[in-house]
């Protein structure tokens, strides 16, 4: 898994949008605009098309998402098994950050 982790870090500024996109695709394939509205809905992050496609092209190249057949100019994407694995890994890391963050802020404020 360390290898996958390293590959994820290579995404640079597309790492955070990638987590959002993979999360969005976890409950089924979506096309570009549907991903943007879904991400805004569950996270409040207003992702712009340039960032979306910058991240999508990288995810596709790594084999973490797969393009489906175009429907009226719009192309849906679906998450792959490898994408699900890397997402689970990233979510575990985030959970660890949340856990430590909560613990330390609680200690600092004396709760």
């Amino acid at each position, binding site marked *: 898994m360390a290898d996958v982790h390293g590959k994820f870090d290579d995404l640079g500024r597309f790492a955070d949008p990638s987590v959002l996109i993979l999360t969005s695709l976890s409950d089924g394939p979506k096309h570009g605009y549907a991903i943007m509205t879904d991400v805004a809905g569950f996270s409040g992050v207003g992702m712009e*098309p340039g960032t*979306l496609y910058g991240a999508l092209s990288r995810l596709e190249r790594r084999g973490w998402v797969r393009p489906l057949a175009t429907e009226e100019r719009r192309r849906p994407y679906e998450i792959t098994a490898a994408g699900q694995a890397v997402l689970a890994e990233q979510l575990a890391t985030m959970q660890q950050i949340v856990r430590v963050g909560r613990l330390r*802020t609680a200690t600092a404020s004396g709760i």
Partner: protein
Amino acid sequence: MRRALAARLSRAVVGCYPRRWRQRYGEELLAVLDQHHPGVRTVLDLGAGALGAHLDPAWRIDGLAMVRRHKDVLGIAAACIAGLMVVVLMVGGWWIAGWWSEEHGSPIPLSQGVAGVAFSPDGRLAAVIGTSLELWDVADRAHPKRLNYTHGDNNVGGEDPAFSPGGRVLATCGGSVTLWNVADPARLTQLAVLPANPGGVNAVAFSPDGRILASGLGDGTVVLWNVADPAHATHIATLTGQAGNLTGLAFSPDGHLLASASPNGTVFLWNVADPARATRTATLTRQAGGVSAVSFSPDGQLLASASDGGTVVLRNIANPAAPVITATLRFTVPASDFAGMAIGPDVALAFSADGRTLTSIAGNTAVTLWNVTNPDLVSRITTVTGDTIGDGEVGFAAGGRIVAGAPTTGDTLALWTLP
């Protein structure tokens, strides 16, 4: 018009992506742009995406063979891209400035953070508390001008100041109340510093006739001052019994009642018709969260209190000894629950001059307008959402029609005019 320009620019920037990239993603990206509402961010974001794709070896492969043969082509291409980016950034910069002042009024740049804000009764002057007291001419909402500011250590504390009803005197919080002559904002002078109070002063309010100043202290005490002659203010009474750091104070329009709000969720109603013998007429509880804003309707029949828990409680105070809750309104509070620590956002309330509309705001993400024509049947008129995220300072002017908001971490104050 700017939207149309943004849509055209967005499409133009898609054309700047590498050819192979466009062959693969161009059509679906344009389809997304058809549904999206492009803004200046969209254009700049696409510009960054195009540059990133040009720098990405994966999309350059087909060009490399050619470049090997014509090395100078790479130089020319790089110069073209750099030139294009400069143009995009310049247009973007000019456009951001125009867009910002069009939609928000110009932001007021401040030395360091905003801790409090108040508008003069005519709405032309804003007093902003940052590291010092700053006076701004906001008559032209799109072009605020700083008129004056105080220097050095001047005991100005970080909570909302208050203008006297005549607009000539300003009271600021701090270790004690400071009164300022703001009749001529260009010549801001200190009139008096009232005796210091333990726990500091966190709220100030003038009576409607401007003769009494109420100050709310950090230990829950309210102190009444005679400020008929602001340069020689005298102590009238000290009202005790409430706990918590008092941050909300309001006089009723006839000046007979004073409401004080506490973070412990209580509002005390005081009879101050005879301020030297002020008495508590009612203790209002049962509001979840800390109450930090109170406001009387113009006819004096209603008292609204807003809590950082996201509720506005509306009470009929026709009988001040027995207020009756007529409505409990819920509004959105920005996510401020940072890592389990509840940090309440600043909340503010204002009735319109005709008493038909109540405006509430928490933090500066969403402003909600309520129709309170019938206090028993209150309805939400609209919620206006701003794009400044956070739980910063907020304030109102002109019966709630002008909203000022500053993010907690920011150093600007934005002005909105409500519909």
